[in-house]
């Protein structure tokens, strides 16, 4: 029964990982661009929420009303001002630029908030939930996170399939030059894609901050989990990202159940296994580039 609980908790955790992964998947899908500072931006959002709580006693879930639009704008500006210059260029410079951004974000946060671990207090929702039976209980926050992931991914899928701009997104990710020939403003599409990516990862960051404690330097670990979820699920598939996140979460949970120190390693092991055996991931349809 404890094993079943480990799986259930792993599934819930998978929702969080899927949320971290969504932005990565989106940015890579639309513009072949990977932001190494992706995880750090999530933590920045958590700290923003922390400030709002510290100053205005605002519940972190309420703070999303400010943090999410802010993240959207920041993502849009980052793309227009910084990232546009390294899309389609030698990946070395993409990697260096976003790596540099990661350093900058981490240290700016550190400068302002020190290295102290912080947490976000969601009041009565925090650490409460409902029990399914003696051993298995489901926390509200993890459940909200999983549902949030499902809602976000469904929303994106619908957007891509049914709207005019969504169609433009898909065309741009296929062939940016040909998209321009259709009259699509490719630079605006990229900026919106990055804005959505940063907004989703900000959501992930705040939810993460409610559940766990965080300090300025935990960003890269979030990037890595998001990345592993994308690879396990398969490039080019949004729903694959959800499945990948869940598999990662479950693997970590089972590993932790075997030995408290093995959680992370178990997740990495599954990731490495997928990479070796089926590099395109479980539902992948893209190439590994």
């Amino acid at each position, binding site marked *: 029964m404890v094993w079943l609980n480990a799986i259930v908790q792993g599934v819930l955790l998978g929702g969080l990982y899927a949320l971290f992964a969504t932005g990565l998947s989106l940015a890579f899908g639309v513009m072949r661009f990977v932001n190494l500072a992706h995880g750090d931006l999530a933590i920045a959002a958590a700290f923003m929420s922390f400030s709002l709580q510290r100053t205005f006693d605002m519940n972190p879930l309420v703070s999303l009303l400010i943090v999410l639009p802010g993240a959207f704008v920041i993502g849009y500006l980052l793309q227009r001002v910084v990232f546009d210059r390294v899309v389609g260029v030698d990946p*070395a410079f993409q990697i*260096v630029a976003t790596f540099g951004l990661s*350093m900058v974000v981490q240290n700016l946060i550190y*400068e302002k908030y020190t290295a102290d671990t912080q947490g976000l207090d969601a009041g009565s929702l925090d650490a409460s939930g409902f029990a399914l039976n003696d051993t298995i209980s489901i926390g509200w926050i993890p459940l909200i996170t999983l549902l949030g992931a499902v809602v976000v991914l469904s929303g994106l899928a619908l957007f891509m399939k049914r709207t005019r701009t969504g169609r433009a997104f898909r065309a741009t990710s296929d062939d940016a030059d040909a998209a321009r020939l259709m009259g699509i403003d490719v630079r605006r599409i990229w900026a919106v894609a990055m804005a959505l990516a940063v907004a989703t990862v900000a959501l992930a960051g705040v939810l993460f901050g409610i559940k766990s404690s965080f300090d300025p330097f935990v960003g890269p670990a979030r990037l890595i989990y998001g990345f592993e979820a994308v690879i396990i699920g398969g490039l080019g598939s949004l729903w694959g990202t959800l499945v990948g996140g869940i598999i990662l979460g479950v693997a970590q949970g089972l590993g932790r159940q075997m030995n408290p120190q093995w959680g992370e*390693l178990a997740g*990495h092991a599954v*990731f490495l296994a997928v990479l070796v055996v089926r590099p395109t991931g479980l539902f992948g349809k893209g190439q590994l580039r």
Partner: protein
Amino acid sequence: MSTFKVARGSTASRVFAVALVVVTVAMATMPSWAEGGTQRKMVELFALISMAQMWNLLAGFAGVVSVGQQAFIGLGAYSMVALINVHGQNVYASIPMSAVLTAIFSIPLALIAFRLRGSYFAIGTWVLADVVSLVMQQQTSLGAGNGVSIKVSGDALERLKIIYWLALGLAIGAIVLTYAVLRSRLGLQMQAIRDNEGGAKGLGANVYRTRFVAWVIAAFWIGLTGAVFYLANLRVQPKDSFSVVNWTAPIVVIVVIGGIGTIEGPIIGALLYYFLRDYFKDYETWYLIGSGIAAILAALYMQPGIWGYVRRRWGLDLFPIRRRLVRTQE
């Protein structure tokens, strides 16, 4: 009528070669006149130059952009711990053995990582470095999470002298190794692939193998660097020796600003980075923020780097690896 010949060297490069020998000899005398603290700092500088050259070999020439090279520092350090503490091997003999062990470990890592490309490859190397670090943390014989000190005996100052020379050798060796690789057939393949991958493949270049070999060479030398550095510092902890912040971040900044794809670039970048960091040592965080911003700006606007611009402007090549067509007078 004038004829042409293909030349590699130039007056500048010959002058520079002489200057390099002079500087090396001068640096070698340092232990006799500098104090321990200074020597220790130079060891760190040499380690940075050494690792920067290897990262540049990978990223600037072989097209392998990795943010996981810190794994090899850690592997070099932990190999030393294993060989010396656990198996009682001779301290100095363990250094090359650690490098070999690191190179061997790098092979399965490459087999896995090379299934990815571009930015995802970079994150993949980050993950692999993390995995190696976690695995090391599980080994109680190697100090587990808390770390362990390398068991040495004998006079600390004598040892520091020897380590200093070893570190100097590391830095010079890294430069010479990079130069030698680039002048070899492997290097020619690398540059051909870098300039035009499709064309190079058409002429028979094996991209995968070229990158693989470069990876293992870099792993060997970075392992060597880790071994020597931690022999100087003695305390080996997973968070420290596998740290991105300590190793990979400075290296990336150094190479990009100095000039990626040139041998001169990482040297300039390392000197600049190191001395500026010393100058700003009371503002450590702001220095990190500043160097991060510098790296971003360099990647966006200054892609050739400092030496890249020097080379463009004055056609200067202190390490002659490119062949030029030179007119000889009749």
